[in-house]
């Protein structure tokens, strides 16, 4: 750990080591203060943890889109947050229609399933068009080029949807079946949180099956490993890449609906930005390009965000700690990039992939 003992003294290593010590110190002191003060009961911790898991499962679903595309093209699709927004925003109108007819509360499960599929298809379409129009012509160009294009595409999508649906917030209608809470041993877990976690889990299992077992999933892995040899197998790599964008889009769109039903503050054209960056953080945290990594990274980030401010920041006497969860999330991004750039499950990046 302390490199200067063996190697020549380096200020960079020294600073990083000091940083390490300071972080560990801050976490230990903060946690000690909070826990010894007993301000937060066990039940409240469990609640925070559950809220973190459900938020995290939304991050995980979006993060999978980043990681799938990175795995196959070594490219960060920074417009992925907007793909998420496209599905979530469009489906609000569908959800309102379902609510007006009363179907949403008569058959909540079926209605939600319909909404998830609808949003998934909308986002899938946006993602596929994005790949076809903005990224495919740039394939083979230096890696900075599609990255900049992605940022441009992100603005384009934001303001297109603002033009389509207006700039105001729209809220998803409340679903009666998702209100209330399960009570287990005196701890109340909101039904909505359980719903979010379970639906995300089902979607992730479907993805896992797709990638590991299906013919197209094997082709996706083959293309991500070696495009030229994949072509020699008769695999149409353009189609596989489009499919990958489509799958990532579908997951993001469904995450949009799940998120909309779970959080009351509504959706607008700008809603994709923060979750997009958070999900990117989650993907990096888990090891970008690694599918279980994105799932784990998302859940981990959600939990850290929920627990971190109360445990560490409040313990250090920072006021309004609960509003600082973004600080925790992005501090995590910086720390991962400094100390473990390959992420939790990632392999060390080779020169070619870095």
């Amino acid at each position, binding site marked *: 750990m302390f490199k200067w003992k063996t190697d020549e003294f380096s200020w960079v290593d020294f600073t990083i080591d000091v940083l390490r010590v300071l972080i560990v110190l801050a976490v230990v002191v903060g946690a000690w203060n909070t826990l010894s003060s007993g301000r937060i009961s066990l039940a409240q911790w469990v609640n925070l943890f559950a809220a973190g898991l459900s938020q995290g499962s939304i991050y995980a679903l979006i993060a999978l889109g980043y990681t799938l595309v990175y795995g196959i093209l070594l490219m960060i699709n920074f417009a992925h947050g907007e793909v998420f927004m496209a599905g979530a925003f469009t489906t609000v109108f569908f959800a309102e229609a379902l609510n007006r007819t009363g179907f949403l509360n008569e058959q909540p499960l079926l209605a939600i399933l319909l909404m998830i599929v609808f949003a998934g298809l909308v986002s899938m379409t946006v993602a596929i068009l994005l790949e076809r129009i903005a990224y495919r012509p740039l394939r083979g160009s230096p890696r900075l080029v599609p990255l900049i294009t992605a940022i441009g595409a992100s603005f384009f999508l934001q303001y297109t949807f603002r033009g389509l649906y207006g700039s105001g917030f729209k809220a998803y209608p409340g679903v009666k079946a998702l209100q209330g809470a399960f009570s287990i041993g005196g701890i109340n877990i909101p039904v909505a949180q359980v719903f979010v976690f379970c639906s995300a889990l089902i979607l992730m299992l479907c993805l896992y099956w797709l990638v590991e077992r299906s013919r197209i999933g094997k082709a996706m892995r083959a293309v991500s490993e070696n495009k*030229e*040899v994949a072509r*020699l197998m008769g695999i149409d790599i353009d189609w596989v890449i489009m499919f990958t964008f489509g799958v990532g889009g579908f997951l993001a769109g469904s995450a949009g609906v799940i998120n909309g039903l779970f959080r009351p503050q509504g959706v607008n054209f700008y809603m994709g930005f923060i979750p997009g960056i958070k999900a990117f953080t989650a993907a990096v945290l888990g090891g970008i390009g690694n599918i279980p990594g994105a799932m784990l990274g998302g859940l981990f980030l959600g939990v850290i965000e929920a627990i971190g401010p109360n445990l560490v920041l409040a313990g250090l006497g920072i006021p309004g700690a609960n509003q600082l969860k973004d600080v925790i999330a992005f501090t995590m991004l910086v720390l991962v990039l400094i100390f473990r750039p390959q992420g939790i499950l990632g392999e060390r990046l080779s020169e070619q992939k870095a």
Partner: protein
Amino acid sequence: MALLEVNGIHTYYGNIHALKGVSFEVDTGEIIALIGSNGAGKTTTLRTISGLMTPREGSVNYDGEVISNTRADMLVSKGISMVPEGRGVFAKLTVEENLDMGAYIRRDGAIKEDLKGAFSLFPRLQERRKQVAGTLSGGEQQMLAIARALMSKPRLLLLDEPSMGLAPVLVDGVFETVQRIANEGVTILLVEQNAHMALQIADRGYVLQSGEVAISDTAANLQKNETVKKTYLGID
């Protein structure tokens, strides 16, 4: 009519003129060896035939059809299969998944049977079917690459340096396998630096030199040819 006709192809890497009008023919059922030293254009020739590269001039005809502008993935379903240089197995996929990828274009029910066929040709692969290909030895990876190329049921098999990087004891086995595949009726175009072995199993051979065909003859005559002996067989 020849199964494969290469007519004066010129292929470039950027501005580098790699093939300068290469022409040759492969008839159905033949084993053809392309020999030559490093940089002579052997691999480029195979890459041009398989559709990974497009010639700037000249054409490749396969089964009476011009294929020089057809994408590599479309050629597989026409019956052309290639074992790339350096084997190119998918290291993170299992042996079985690699073989499945070989049969990617097929939708018929006989894939399972052909998988068994591949395993009887290479029993070592059966033992390791659930193992990821990256953990196989070089020889096993070469077996896998050949077995995978056969899974698409090709009429024409392109082999790029199958003996490269293998221990001498394994080299004989590879050439025996190639001979066996040919006996099953698959036409073979073999690129080799190991001219000695290649000419022993080949019917005819072409010697490439600086992107051009320098000598073409039957394999038996090439083995006796003074230039070939000196330059490629290491016999004075």
